[in-house]
């Protein structure tokens, strides 16, 4: 399926979805060395966000999550992209700062997240000003549409 979303940080990405059962605070919730979810009260504790398309209803908790997201991006253990059900300024700032400092892009998209499951293959591309298209396929077939090489950002 193809779903339309709004970019809060624009960029192209492709990867396997990790759909969280609850919003995650990056501060106190994600190990910056590895991308592992370390919040013991979180239902997805022990999963790893690195390289995944992280899908969750929203952000949560301390604004220090901006720094933690930026640091995971710098270390290369951030999600390939973050897909949120509602906007989150804290994660947006973290991704913007990493883009400013290091030229590394972790796109942030807000769209409906129902029907997306962990393991789905998702490809995100820009189709207009701030408009994202999410191509969502099952894990065993390529996402619909032909893969187009794009430069990040």
């Amino acid at each position, binding site marked *: 399926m193809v779903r339309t979303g709004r970019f809060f940080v624009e960029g192209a990405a492709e990867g396997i979805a990790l759909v969280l059962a609850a919003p995650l605070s990056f501060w106190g919730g994600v190990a910056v060395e590895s991308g592992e979810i370390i919040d013991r009260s979180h239902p997805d504790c022990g999963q790893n966000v690195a390289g995944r398309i992280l899908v969750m209803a929203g952000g949560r908790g301390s*604004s*220090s999550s*901006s*720094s*933690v997201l930026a640091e995971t991006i710098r270390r290369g253990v951030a999600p390939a992209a973050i897909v949120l059900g509602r*906007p989150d*300024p804290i994660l947006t*700032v973290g991704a*913007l700062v990493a883009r*400013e400092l290091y030229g590394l892009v972790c796109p942030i998209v807000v769209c409906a997240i129902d029907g997306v499951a962990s393991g789905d293959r998702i490809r995100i591309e820009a189709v207009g000003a701030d408009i994202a298209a999410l191509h969502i396929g099952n894990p065993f077939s390529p996402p619909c549409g032909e893969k187009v090489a794009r430069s990040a950002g």
Partner: protein
Amino acid sequence: MPLQLNALDTAMLNGDFGPAAASAMAILAAFSEAIGAPSLLDISRAHVDGCLYHGQASLDFVERLAAQGGRVRVPTTLNVGSLDLIHPELIRLDSAQQAPRRRLMQAHEELGCVPSFTCAPYQTLFRPSFGEQIAWGESNAIVFANSAIGARTNRYGDFIDLCCAMTGRAPAWGLHLSENRRGRILFRIAGLKDSRAATDGLYVAVGLLIGAQAGEMIPVIEGLPPPRDEDQLKALGAAAASAGAVGLFHAVGITPEAPNLAEAFHGKAPEATVAIGPGDIAQALRQLSNAPDGAPVAAICLGTPHFSRREWERFLPLLRDFAPRAGVPIYVNTGRATLAALEAEGLLDGANEYGLVAVADTCTYVTAILARLDGVVMTNSGKWAHYAPGNIGVRVAFGEIEDCLASAAAGRVTRVSSW
């Protein structure tokens, strides 16, 4: 509607004020666009929560602004850092760990920020006044400025607070605007016995309860006993901002935007009403403790948020009354300016005999200060009790300040007050 920038914003973005201002404006504009703000507005002050080291990215951001010759455009105070620069011997980090943490604090000073290193900037000369537009980071400071003072800030945080300081601008959005400061959920306190009403624990408990239940709505509290001083409102706000995302509360008859119920709700009806009784308060406080009475105490931690001058004046006579000599350190976090004045006046003389360890510039739950982590730490702070178990891995007992001192004297969790 896209973000509208004025001529000054655009000039800044285009580099007319130098590369650091341009970079800060680019991030601020993108953030403002992302949250749907129509424009930016002027701020008169900022408080930056950027001195806690979360990794190299924290430092790279500030270093780049400093290397570009950046300066803040409005008076800007700094929140706590990861080190106590006044008492470096307290910090249990090796020099390699300390170096980037020290540099982060110093780089902020190079940007022209005031080296206040306190989470209670409202206790400094830089306290804002009613109606002032400001951009503050640090959750307890934000809720205090909005609620107890009536200044106006959103819940700014990492990076964006500094971008506001570097540009003197903030998004015209959220709590900066009158219409968004309207109360939406009513918490009605009833059934309190007078003798218990105004203890510090009450304010902590009410903070925890509204924080947990207000969600995105601005809470209005009716029936809150008049606080002894603004420190009790500080404790309430800090607990609310720890248990939830509260950036502003109104207390009817107490806080400046709530002279009465109708004004707190801007003449509209509450969308929900929650009753708070003595049982709710007792339960909220019980849940802050994860150690039983009688357990050995490793330390007492007070001053989260930073102890005010008034709190010291209340605490010091109690310390001398309880005269604890069981070898339990009593850490008290406070602002460096507050501490300097106390020391100059000799008010702390001899207090170390009772285990007093004054901590400045940082806080005992965000860095490695505590000598022992194996026992129970007792605190009078809802915020400390909320965060310390996760941050530094200790067991916590919450109590009134008298309970904390009685426990220090006995060497184990002892209660002389009760909820």
